[in-house]
């Protein structure tokens, strides 16, 4: 068994798509100097050229946000690092914060320089409070360094308090402003009106680190990796039924078949890509499914399920999660989540007929097009993908 695990790790680490950018040693001072010397437009151009898209889940082209915020007229602008990492099965940002916080800060600095922001805020989830002391020390050093270099940019930490939805960018802003984390109407987008109504760029931890690396080594180092629509690499959080759970930086574009071969075994029944709000891919579709924006997008959460797992229990657990973590303001999400949960329970208990599952599928589709924010819109991802692929486990 022990040998098996070692062997598996070796296989993963020697895979041709396995890369090491984020956790590699880099000369941070050089990085900071490079950012300092680069013109704002050049920063945006370089990031555009690299093809970097957001690593927080939505995959929005990073340069467009930067450009929007740069062009927004305001004396005060903000950079926010989204370290709320609440998606079940995701823990890569935690590891980056623990090990490579300097690179996050350099990435924030690059964004600040690009848009003209003087303040940066790291919104750190409360579950990671134990990282605050270590992170703060690094921030202090960084802030001091910039001060010495006469670059006007300061970073602060602000903590969450246990609400998954606060990872959604506008809920996050509300929370930063001392309010309930209820998502805002969009437009206006944060790049126009963000924190305290000022132009704000919000990026995921990992996005910021890649931005920093692109500043240091140029767009080429990034865009040479990955596929046409999914450039670069990504840090994956691998968990569930695997012998080698953990953090792996892998080039974009791997098929789920390759992935399951590396991390799973012959008993892998499905992989949940993108966390509770992502898609469940059954074994039969591993081969045709590419991990990336052209296939199944992911913020990095990869949960493997072996054939001993009940898909009903998995779906049930996800739905319980959404019932609790919805902000509750909009009808489709607040009530819809409860109905989906109640619905599968009732079918199981034979209080509702098997046909009721179709009503629930319709409901999930309607939630996708009517919910106010990404949370309610994405509940249909796990729901539909699990029900359609494992109908016999949900409807007996």
């Amino acid at each position, binding site marked *: 068994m022990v040998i098996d695990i070692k062997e598996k790790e070796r296989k993963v680490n020697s895979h041709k798509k396995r890369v090491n950018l984020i956790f590699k040693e880099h000369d941070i001072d050089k990085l900071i100097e490079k950012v300092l010397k680069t013109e704002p437009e050049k920063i945006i151009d370089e990031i555009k050229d690299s093809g970097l898209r957001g690593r927080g889940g939505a995959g929005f082209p990073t340069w467009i946000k930067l450009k929007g915020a740069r062009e927004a007229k305001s004396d005060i602008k903000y950079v926010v690092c989204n370290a709320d*990492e*609440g*998606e*079940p*099965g*995701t*823990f890569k*940002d*935690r590891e980056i914060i623990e090990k490579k916080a300097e690179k996050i800060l350099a990435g924030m600095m690059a964004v600040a320089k690009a848009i003209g922001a003087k303040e940066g805020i790291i919104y750190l*989830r*409360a*579950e*990671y*409070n*134990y990282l605050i002391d270590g992170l703060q020390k690094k921030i202090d050093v960084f802030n001091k360094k910039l001060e010495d270099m006469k670059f006007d940019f300061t970073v602060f930490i*602000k*903590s*969450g*308090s*246990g*609400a*998954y939805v606060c990872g959604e960018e506008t809920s996050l802003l509300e*929370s*930063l*402003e*001392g*309010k*309930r*984390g209820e998502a805002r109407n969009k437009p206006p987008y944060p790049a126009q009106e963000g924190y*305290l109504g000022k132009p704000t760029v919000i990026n995921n931890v990992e996005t910021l680190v890649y931005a920093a690396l692109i500043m240091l080594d140029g767009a080429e180092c990034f865009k040479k990796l990955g596929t046409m629509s999914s450039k670069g690499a990504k840090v994956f*959080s*691998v*968990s*569930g*039924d695997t012998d080698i*759970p*953990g*953090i792996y930086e892998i080039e974009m574009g791997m098929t789920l078949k390759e992935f399951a071969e590396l991390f799973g075994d012959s008993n892998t029944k499905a992989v*949940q890509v993108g966390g*509770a709000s992502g898609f469940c891919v059954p074994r039969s579709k591993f081969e045709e499914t590419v991990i990336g924006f052209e296939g199944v997008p992911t913020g990095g959460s990869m*949960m493997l*399920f072996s054939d001993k*797992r009940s898909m009903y*229990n*998995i779906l049930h*657990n*996800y739905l*319980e*999660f959404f019932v*609790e*973590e919805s*902000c509750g303001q909009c009808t489709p999400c607040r009530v819809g989540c409860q109905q989906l949960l109640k619905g599968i329970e009732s079918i199981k208990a034979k209080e509702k007929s098997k046909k009721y599952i179709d009503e629930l599928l319709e409901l999930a589709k309607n939630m996708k097009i009517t919910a106010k924010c990404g949370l309610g819109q994405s509940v249909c991802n796990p729901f539909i993908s699990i029900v359609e692929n494992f109908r016999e486990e949900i409807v007996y």
Partner: protein
Amino acid sequence: MTEINIVKDAVKKHGRKRESLMPVLQEIVKQENYLSEERLMEIAKEFDLSSAEVYGVATFYSFLPVKPMGENVIKVCQTIVCDMKGKEAVLDAIKDKLNIVPGQTSADGKFSLMAVNCIGQCSNAPAMLVNDKPYINLTYENVVKIIDEYQS
């Protein structure tokens, strides 16, 4: 009146602008484990908000409880990976040791138990936080030991 000072001190530290409300609420929870009615009212006063509004903000967040909590708060992850990997054993150990289920506080007021959502330790599931500290790769036995440590 050392009483009122805890809110005043927090406000001194974080400021009384609306953006400082969360840090102040967090500070009080850190010190007293929950937000009592009196504290919420004092905070409302400092921020010139209505008490209802402050209550509304606090109740949005799982980690800003408005009901009394024990000295140590155990937050057991209930989300899928931990659920698959033995969350039940963790809860059983706590039940056997402290006679509490999620939502309850032990009779001696030393421990409260919360079931929370994914705490970002999924590669080492099941996991829990005691106060802010994570504990991973839990089994019935090591949970018993961890509680013993907090009890002594």
